[in-house]
């Protein structure tokens, strides 16, 4: 992957001379670390077009960015001048003071940004968001129709009923999929579902976990009911697996990331039947909750503390070029962009619907990561039927408490 991006960027570097006027930087070294999906590829390749005389742009797009970012930015000078962060990774970097406030640079170069794109913590701009993401419902309307289901399910209870009809009609044995691979993905599904109850994960103002309650139990019960309609291998399903299953036409109802939308709806990797039947819609609500059972994520630009001011500024300008209105217009379907030039499309209807439905953002708490890890490891026992929901949640809290003590969040 690394080699591929390097050569990709290298190709842009050769073409860079024509773009230099648009970027307005004359010197500096720009290096970007980020996750890897189509929208981010569009941003980083546009930023890379700023390369030219005296300006170098390197990018490293990898899904393992989380594992290397802290070490890479702790070094002085930092290995990367910018990291494309999200709700959760920004907190990790801020915990160690590895990213710098951007107020001055926003004032100088950020005229095109809208206020809602600025991620401010305690009054200081710490990141500039450029896109929103969320997990939401993907439905195959043709299969739903064939099974006699009216419309697209709006609640998870409706999803279960529709899945039962599809199974009863003999159309599909396992029509439902969630990203339920044990670990981070499964924990994220719990977080999404729990968000739908409107409850908090921690006791107010403390780092004490508060998931072992009736909301937690109901969340686990709902997840278990859903995976009953999933392929028995569901504990190995990540985003790549669910997308492949969807494109192979094996699924009718799935909760997947919005950023997969354009890849599912394009004319590659699937049949016309699957693509034309696929509709993206808001994450369902469930129980008595009014809030869609999903978490909102933003992806944005953060600049390293441990680089020279010159490089930081060059990086900021290059990245502003990466998220400019032109890039958004050219890649409109790749994401739900936060830029004013963005036009809603079918591929982004799910994320927009989830956000306008009132879903909450993923908590920006420094100890959320430890709870997420504990969830990913401990709730599989319940789903596999070897322990009760209460026991699984008690295990989650115990594992979290031990981890949070080690990280200094609890005494």
């Amino acid at each position: 992957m690394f080699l591929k991006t390097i050569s990709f960027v290298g190709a842009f570097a050769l073409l860079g001379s024509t773009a230099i006027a648009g970027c307005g930087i004359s010197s500096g070294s720009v290096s970007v670390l980020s996750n890897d999906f189509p929208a981010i590829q569009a941003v980083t390749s546009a930023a890379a077009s700023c390369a030219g005389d005296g300006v170098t742009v390197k990018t490293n797009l990898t899904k393992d960015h989380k594992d290397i970012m802290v070490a890479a930015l702790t070094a002085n000078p930092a290995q990367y001048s910018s990291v494309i962060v999200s709700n959760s990774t920004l907190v990790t970097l801020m915990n160690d003071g590895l990213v710098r406030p951007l107020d001055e640079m926003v004032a100088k170069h950020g005229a095109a940004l809208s206020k809602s794109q600025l991620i401010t913590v305690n009054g200081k701009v710490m990141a500039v968001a450029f896109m929103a993401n969320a997990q939401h419902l993907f439905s195959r309307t043709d299969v739903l129709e064939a099974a006699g289901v009216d419309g697209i399910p709006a609640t998870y209870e409706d999803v279960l009923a529709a899945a039962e009809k599809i199974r009863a009609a003999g159309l599909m044995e396992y029509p439902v999929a969630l990203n339920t691979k044990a670990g981070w993905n499964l924990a994220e599904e719990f977080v999404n579902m729990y968000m739908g109850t409107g409850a908090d994960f921690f006791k107010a103002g403390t780092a004490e976990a508060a998931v072992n309650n009736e909301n937690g139990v109901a969340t686990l019960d709902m997840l278990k009911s859903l995976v009953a309609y999933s392929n028995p291998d569901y504990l190995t399903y990540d985003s790549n697996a669910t997308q492949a299953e969807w494109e192979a036409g094996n699924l009718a109802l799935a909760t997947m990331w919005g950023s997969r939308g354009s890849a599912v709806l394009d004319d590659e990797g699937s049949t016309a039947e699957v693509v034309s039947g696929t509709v993206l819609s808001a994450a369902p609500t469930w129980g008595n909750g009014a809030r869609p059972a999903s978490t909102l994520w933003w992806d944005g630009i953060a600049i390293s503390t441990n680089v020279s001011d010159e490089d930081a500024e060059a990086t900021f300008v290059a990245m502003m070029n990466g998220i400019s209105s032109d890039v958004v217009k050219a890649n409109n379907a790749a994401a739900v962009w936060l830029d004013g030039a963005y036009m809603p499309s079918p591929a982004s209807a799910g994320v927009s619907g989830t956000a306008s439905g009132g879903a909450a953002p993923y908590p920006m708490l420094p100890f959320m990561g430890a709870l997420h890890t504990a969830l990913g490891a401990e709730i599989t026992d319940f789903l596999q039927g070897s322990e009760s929901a209460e026991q699984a949640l008690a295990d989650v809290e115990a594992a979290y408490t031990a981890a949070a003590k080690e990280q200094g969040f609890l005494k």
Partner: protein
Amino acid sequence: MKNRTFFWFILPSLITMLLFIALPIISVAVQSLHIEHEAVMVEVKNCGPFGCKQELQVDVEETAKLKQERPLGQFNGLGTYTNRNHLAFTEIGLAWQSSTGVVDFMSKVLNLPFYRALAFTLTYTFVVTPLVVTFGFMIALGVNTLPKKIKGPTIFISLLPMIVTPLIGSLILFWMIDANGILGSTLQWIFEDPDLSLKASPPLTWIMLMVYGVWHSAPFAFIVFYAGLQTVPAETMEAAMIDGASRWERTRYVVLPHLMPLTVFILLIQLMDNFRVFEPIVSFSAQASATSLSWIIYNDLVGTESQFFGSAGATSVLTIIGVSILLIPVLVRTWRDFNQKVV
């Protein structure tokens, strides 16, 4: 060799071993005795595309001061070793008091992450190791009797499982045993069960991982045994034949005793290797059903946003202790044999 010559002879290795083995282990052990500083928290207003919220954040400046004073973190003694995510003394005590019987107690113990991992690690080690030695020996005997012309290619093919990188080898198998894969669907066809999934049930996952382990390691045992077979003295074999020993008796009374030191060597290596079982768990996405000590270390360091260095250090030290305990019987035996030979 004079003591002095010996000293100079061994000095370079000694220095490298100190630098690259002893020092890292000491640093890991020291790290495992520490936890991070108490985080200084402040409540701040966070704003973004989805609105504003009052949330707790780490006070970077205050925490940085603490880190500057003591970069290793707070001294925690053996606290990390005894907490719930490792040896869990408190939880085991409680489980012992509240259990209704041995089965209930065991199920409570196996619910704790460290013991669950230990259970799989030990089962894997004690099932895979003897099977690897047995299969390796049998393959070596078989190949040794082949005509010269096809010996070379056979040896090459037999070694393939070991040549393939473990991560890749297990990933290939992972796809083959998928319900849509060639092995997975064949098994479904044989057992006439369309729901049969090797990835879904914990017992089948355990079996699958162990089968993989044997498949991957048997070639190592094979090649060592095969080399050993070339050194079996021909006179002794001929003498045994003249005495009317059958093929089985020759193998049992001549070949096996001759290869005993090699068997001990393979056991030693395999016990160590299998106790560190790791790659197949990652490749097979098997963490829901099977975890190992090495996997716990990996999980503390990778895939989470903030790494748990103290916890990973503690598990590493416990793994080293585990390997040492496993190897004691084999080492004692080797030591005795060595002493007998000197006398």
